[in-house]
């Protein structure tokens, strides 16, 4: 039995996953996390540092890390990469001015060795705003079709209405589960 098999077996027992939520500041990361957990989203302050939520979903224990996206905090993102199963990249679909910044940060992230193998879910958030770009437009602007290093999927959602959050997380869990919890 190889090391990888042993690791898989161990993980299988715990059925635990570590998800890392990243994206530019103001994208809606904290709001998504709280909404998903059924909490009030009207009192959320800008994140200084990070939030961690542990929740049960579909029989899995999810450890979700929501890390602040301010410019001055982005250099710390790497401190959170270790043993990440899934990366959730959150985009403010109405923030056209920073899309280029957003694309650059994401592609730099995908080069990180410690994130290799993590499944990528892109949330094109704030779809409820009239000026929001569609998920197809975001897909193009972030050049997602060029990604060869990760499994990925983009989903349009709104953290304020809760629309499609579940669909996104379900896709992510299925993809990760197929990867690390499959028995041989």
């Amino acid at each position, binding site marked *: 039995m190889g090391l990888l098999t042993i690791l898989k077996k161990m993980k299988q027992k715990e059925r635990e996953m570590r998800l890392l939520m990243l994206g530019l500041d*103001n994208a809606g990361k904290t709001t998504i996390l709280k*909404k*998903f*957990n*059924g909490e009030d*989203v*009207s009192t*959320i*302050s*800008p994140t*200084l*540092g*990070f939030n*961690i939520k542990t*929740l049960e*979903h579909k029989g899995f224990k999810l450890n979700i890390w929501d890390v*602040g996206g*301010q*410019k*001055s*905090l982005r250099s*710390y993102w790497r*401190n959170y990469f*270790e043993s990440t199963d899934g990366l959730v990249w959150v985009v403010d679909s*109405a*923030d*056209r*001015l920073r*899309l*280029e910044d957003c*694309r*650059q940060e994401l*592609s*730099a992230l*995908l*080069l990180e*060795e410690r994130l*290799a*193998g993590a499944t990528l879910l892109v949330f094109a958030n*704030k779809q409820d705003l*009239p*000026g929001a770009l569609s998920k197809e*437009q975001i897909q*193009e*602007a*972030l050049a997602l079709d*060029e*990604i*060869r*290093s*990760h*499994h*990925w999927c983009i989903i349009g959602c709104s953290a304020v*209405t*809760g*629309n*499609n*959050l*579940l*669909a996104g997380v379900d896709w992510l869990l299925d993809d990760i589960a197929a990867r690390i919890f499959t028995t041989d």
Partner: protein
Amino acid sequence: MDAKAECTQGIGVAGESGAFKIQERLQKRHQERAEEAERRKEAKESRSVAEEKGEYFSSTFDTERASIEELLSSCTGADRAVVTQTLEEATVKTLQLQKFLNDSMLFLTQYELRRAQDALQKLQTSSAEIREEALPKKKFAFRARSKATDKVSAPESDTPAASVSTKVAVAPAVSVQCGFSNMNNVCLTKTAEEIHKQDVLLTHLTNCKVRLFGSPSTLHMKHIDSCEILCGPVSSSVFIDHCRDSTLAIPCQQLRTHNTQDTRVYLHVTSRAIIEDCHGVSFAPFSWSYPTLKEDFIVSGLDQNRNNWSQVDDFHWLAAGTPSPNWTVIPEEDRKTNWEL
């Protein structure tokens, strides 16, 4: 605005389905109160534990850090083989220290966390520098790992990771967006109908007076110089970047201010305001008024009775106990009271 009711997907724990019987509710509430009291007691006790843990963390962390620094400094003048081995040892130790930090995060204060993260970053930088200098050709690292990860990457993965150089033309922004751009020396107004639930963008305005009546969903401002901008209640966040010598009056849920200088903000904020890379920003409570302001507050969902205008977090100033020098409160006698055009 009932956030829960809008959660149409019925996400997991969210939402209360069906009607509880009143008695059940009362009982539940009673139980919750008892639990809350218990929790408070526990919180009190655990706080002192947390402080002890914090101290333990700091001293352990500092000892480890010092030993890594020692390893690194022993590299100067050493021969290649020794440097290689020492660096490897230092890297392993740094990773362990990282792990220790990750495991301790829950009880660290922001300040301790930031300090530790900075220290780790420094260690990584200096070991990278030493490596660069002493072992210029050979690429060091746990490269072998990427073999294992190949297996789990996308099926079509015969090409290396995406190139980063593509420029993507994004659909012409400003034309479809509600707002004003590229104007000088004018008065600009939008009505409640135009503004209603829109995402509003103001860019490249100099010496303008802007009045936005009504309640937008969100408001972005970029490259604002010597303007006076007044806006009705914004239901979510206001994002400001590169603004100078201006006066703003806005109610909102969050205010995020970047690269801004010498600007006065008359603010109503229901959660928090933050500044980053700013100086000379001053705050006072929102005092602009117009006939339908109250209705617009209702539309926005903001609580008119909750205003945290004076609780500003400076993301570049985390020293515990010392207030940020980058923002101030406008003294009462200097506050603007007349907003006539």
